[in-house]
């Protein structure tokens, strides 16, 4: 396990370095004059000179990369070119909204998806199983921003059950949760289907194994066999999947945050792309990607700790 963990963490470190390098290239090797592109047509020569100095555009590329990586390592992601606030603080302010959304989305997907998958596997080819199959595929494929817009249309604009925009009053937990319902519904919906499918598939496999046959032969009630014995083993592949789910919830969050005007990291990146505020875009994208990789790492480590067989495939 220790060897696996070391190898897996080492691999993650390499990928994180590659991510930082990729983003550095993307932003710093913009074709044309980065200062002119970033500052727009109304920039004065003084603004341009200051921008060049701040972004170290007069230094050679490798110097820029090393100082960029060194600063990023210390949590210094540069400064917003317009407001001159540290990017790390801007990102840190947006992050809790996105993390809350990601957890809420995955949370309800787990609560509904896993029991649904178990039930389908315990009653294969029943009408609930077939219905679950179709709904799963449908919810997995329908783009989450379409779900967001349609739920906004149905539940906020037409029925007026939920608030239309914003994240709720600061400090008012109830209000904030109320504002979280629709975005979490939209982002998590696809995962309900995905989890149900995964759990069903791995559950069917486990239910065919000998220890389950023994449990049945001992006369244990079916409910105990399925939910206490089989689920324990069948849930393992899902753990790995949840790490990925966290990352894809980030992707879905971009749309949900824009559509419902939540001040999270997805909306931040989008607003800054539109404003061409590169340091913030860079810091936001890097944070999102590194969180994604870390979530996958944690999920893999948990899965490996729970199931020694996982340690073999690296």
């Amino acid at each position, binding site marked *: 396990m220790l060897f696996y963990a070391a190898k897996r963490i080492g691999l993650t470190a390499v990928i994180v370095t590659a*991510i930082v390098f990729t*983003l550095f290239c993307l932003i710093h090797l913009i074709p044309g004059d980065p200062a002119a592109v970033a500052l727009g047509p109304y920039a004065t020569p003084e603004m341009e000179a200051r921008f060049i100095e701040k972004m170290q555009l007069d230094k050679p590329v490798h110097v820029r990369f090393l100082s960029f990586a060194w600063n990023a390592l210390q949590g210094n992601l540069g400064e917003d070119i317009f407001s001159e606030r540290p990017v790390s603080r801007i990102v840190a302010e947006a992050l809790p909204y996105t993390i809350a959304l990601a957890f809420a989305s995955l949370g309800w997907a787990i609560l509904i998806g896993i029991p649904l998958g178990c039930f389908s596997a315990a009653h294969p080819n029943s009408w609930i199983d077939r219905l679950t199959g179709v709904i799963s595929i449908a919810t997995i*494929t329908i783009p989450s921003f379409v779900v967001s*817009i349609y739920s906004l249309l149905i539940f906020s*604009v037409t029925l007026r059950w939920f608030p239309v925009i914003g994240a709720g009053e600061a400090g008012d937990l109830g209000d904030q949760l109320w504002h979280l319902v629709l975005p979490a519904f939209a982002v998590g919906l696809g995962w309900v289907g995905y989890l149900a499918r995964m759990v069903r598939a791995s559950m069917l496999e486990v239910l065919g194994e000998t220890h389950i046959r023994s449990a049945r032969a001992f006369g244990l009630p079916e409910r105990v066999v399925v939910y206490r014995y089989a689920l324990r083993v069948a849930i393992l592949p899902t753990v790995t999947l949840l790490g990925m789910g966290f990352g894809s919830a980030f992707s879905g969050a971009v749309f949900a945050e824009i559509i419902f005007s939540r001040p999270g990291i997805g909306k931040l990146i989008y607003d800054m792309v539109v404003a061409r505020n590169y340091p913030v875009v860079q810091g936001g994208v890097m944070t999102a990607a590194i969180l994604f990789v870390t979530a996958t790492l944690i999920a893999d480590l948990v899965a490996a700790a729970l199931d020694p067989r996982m340690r073999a495939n690296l």
Partner: protein
Amino acid sequence: MAVAPDVPSSSLPETPAARRARAFWQGLKELTRNPFGAVGLVIVVLFFLSALFAPYLTPYDPYALDVPSRLARPSFEHLLGTDQLGRDTFTRVLYGGRIAMQLALVAVTAALVIGLVLGMIAGYGPRWLDSILILVFDTLRSFPTIIMGLAIVAVTQPSLTVIMVIFVLHAAPAFGRIARTQTMALKNTEFILAEKSLGARTPLVLTRHMMPNVLGPLLILAAMDVPVVVTVEAGLSFLGLGIQPPTASWGGILKEGYSVLRETPWLVIAGGMPLVLTTLGFTFLGEALRDSFDPKLREAR
């Protein structure tokens, strides 16, 4: 032994080509017997036909303004109503389908070819090259798709080409991974070893003998990836960072509809429905294809 002329051809041993053709038709028959496969196939065919024949299916010009009748409800005159500038929404949905079709064909093919080539190189080539390619694949996959898209649009101007690049960067690693695994599994099979011992050169072994065997699973993944590229395009266009107006696209229609959501629901319904149908159609088809042509892949996703 000479074959007597009166022996019916069916008793002759099948040629490999004939066997492959028979397997294909059998798979296709099985596909249409599966209700979801059939529904998926119908939607996909409709998608291509409506995109190809868009100009003949509607009397309107997708760019013709008619401001007095803006935001009209659906009627016989305007099947899906009109948008803010009075343009016929049904017409714009049809023309938006053309953009989606172009992307589906070009971007998915590009991702497949790039993934295939890189994956086969990784699987067949030296170990250090394999490690580098895997690192590249994994790094690309560790950016959430739309966030990577935003980062790329940030430094370029939004265009159809940029959407394609974003999709290829997102999708090619998945093709590459599968191609690599398949190539590795094939590398030491007997027929490849036999080819090599007969003196076949590496390029010939790779293209003539390995590629046909690697390609199958990739084609199924390609069908499954069409919804992804259509979604990426619509998503970016919805954000105003994809297809630029006045060109009609489904995401663009959604964007407009979102801005007038309190006045009329018809624009978001018209922009969203073709997206839902297309993604469902291609996924149903892909799933059915996988079930009838490649049972091994059934739970591999």
